């Protein structure tokens, strides 16, 4: 396995996922801070504790939070709520300056490496004296296979939408704009990457076309429903819980690179 040191412009050359974390740890010459997009990642847990000397970055959204490793281990073992960030340190500039010289960002796929969240990590943590590493995360084979199957299913549904768009005659749907199809593809890619890093399986989700040229994505899980209408490059997101309620929890208009927060809500 190759350790990767990269800049944003070089991320496109990232390799596909591999299966071991040990080279990072053995090569580390200074304290290592782990970041994963999956929250409770087995990667950091399975690493020798001495190697993770600083902590784990658990959130990259509005504010970066660093959770001390002991707190993280408690969280992972179920003593705290999953993904609990109680005790986390919100990093201001002074905290950023104290971060270690090497930050390892564990990524599962090339798409994830290119996501804005990882770019956010880079932009916030990059420093002339700090090395940012992007390294593939080991994942369980079953989860990869599941995500792959689901990706195939959703790709098939998207292909149906595209073929409908080309159908002629009175039954023709409205034209699906390229930007809508591209946004849908990005949503599928993000979802696939997200599922690889999660523990969820057997999900109820689908894509269907609408006559007006939009695409509806729906994911129902337990007593929650995430509904996304894709129109050009905008995702109209709405969430319901419980399923029987009429009113939704809220309405968001986002670009596809911001959808992960809503996946987080669903699987929480």
């Amino acid at each position, binding site marked *: 396995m190759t350790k990767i040191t990269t800049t944003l412009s070089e991320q496109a050359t990232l390799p596909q996922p591999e299966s071991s974390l040990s080279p990072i740890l053995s090569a580390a010459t200074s304290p290592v801070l782990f970041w994963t997009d999956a929250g409770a990642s087995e990667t950091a847990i399975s690493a020798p504790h001495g190697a993770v000397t600083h902590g784990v970055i658990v959130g990259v959204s509005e504010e970066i939070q660093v959770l001390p490793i002991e707190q993280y281990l408690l969280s992972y073992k179920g003593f705290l709520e999953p993904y609990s960030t109680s005790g986390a340190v919100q990093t201001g500039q002074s905290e950023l300056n104290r971060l270690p010289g090497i930050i390892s960002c564990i990524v599962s796929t090339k798409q994830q490496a290119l996501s804005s969240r990882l770019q956010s990590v880079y932009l916030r943590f990059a420093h002339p004296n700090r090395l940012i590493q992007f390294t593939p995360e080991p994942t369980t084979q079953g989860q990869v296979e599941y995500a792959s199957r689901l990706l195939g299913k959703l790709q098939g549904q998207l292909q149906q939408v595209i073929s409908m768009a080309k159908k002629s005659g009175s039954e023709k749907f409205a034209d699906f704009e390229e930007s809508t199809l591209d946004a849908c593809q990005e949503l599928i890619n993000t979802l696939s990457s997200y599922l690889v890093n999660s523990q969820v399986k057997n999900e109820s989700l689908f894509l*269907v076309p*609408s006559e*007006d040229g939009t695409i509806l994505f729906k994911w129902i899980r337990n007593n929650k429903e995430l*509904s996304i*209408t894709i129109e050009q490059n905008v995702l*109209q997101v*709405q969430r319901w819980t419980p399923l029987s309620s009429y009113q939704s929890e809220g*309405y968001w208009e986002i670009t596809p690179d911001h959808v992960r927060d809503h996946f987080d809500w669903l699987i929480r």
Partner: protein
Amino acid sequence: MADSIAYPIVGAPLPHEANVYRALRLESFSPEGDPTEAHFIMKKKHRTEEGPSHGICDLIPREHAERLFHPQRIAKLNVSEMVNPSGGQSLSERGVVVIPYRDAKSDEFYKEYAEAHAVLTGYQDLTNKELNEFKRHLASLAKKALEADKSTTNIDPPKT
């Protein structure tokens, strides 16, 4: 059609006890076979005639409606349930109504049942959030209607 009208005829809102048929495109059903929000296109910029089209049950026989919309499926919806969702604000008070609506295009499609054509309208002032909630509600009603049809057709005919 020579005898079709060239200008729209808009009637008074249908009474809440009225029932209407809504045609559902096969492509927009979920993989489990349930109606979805994609069956109810409602945009804030819609003109009246662009609202979701319905057939007034009392003015067109079901068999004819089924033939007219084939291969789409049709769901029988109650107007009151449509615009007064339980657990939500009354939409009829916000001006959401089902109105009889005729123009040359609908007359040509409905032919001898032209008077049965109606459209859902008045939703243009709802927010995007409210519109999507309303669509989801209509999809849920359509699902119940299809399930009711299914259970009805499964009932053995009475023995004579």
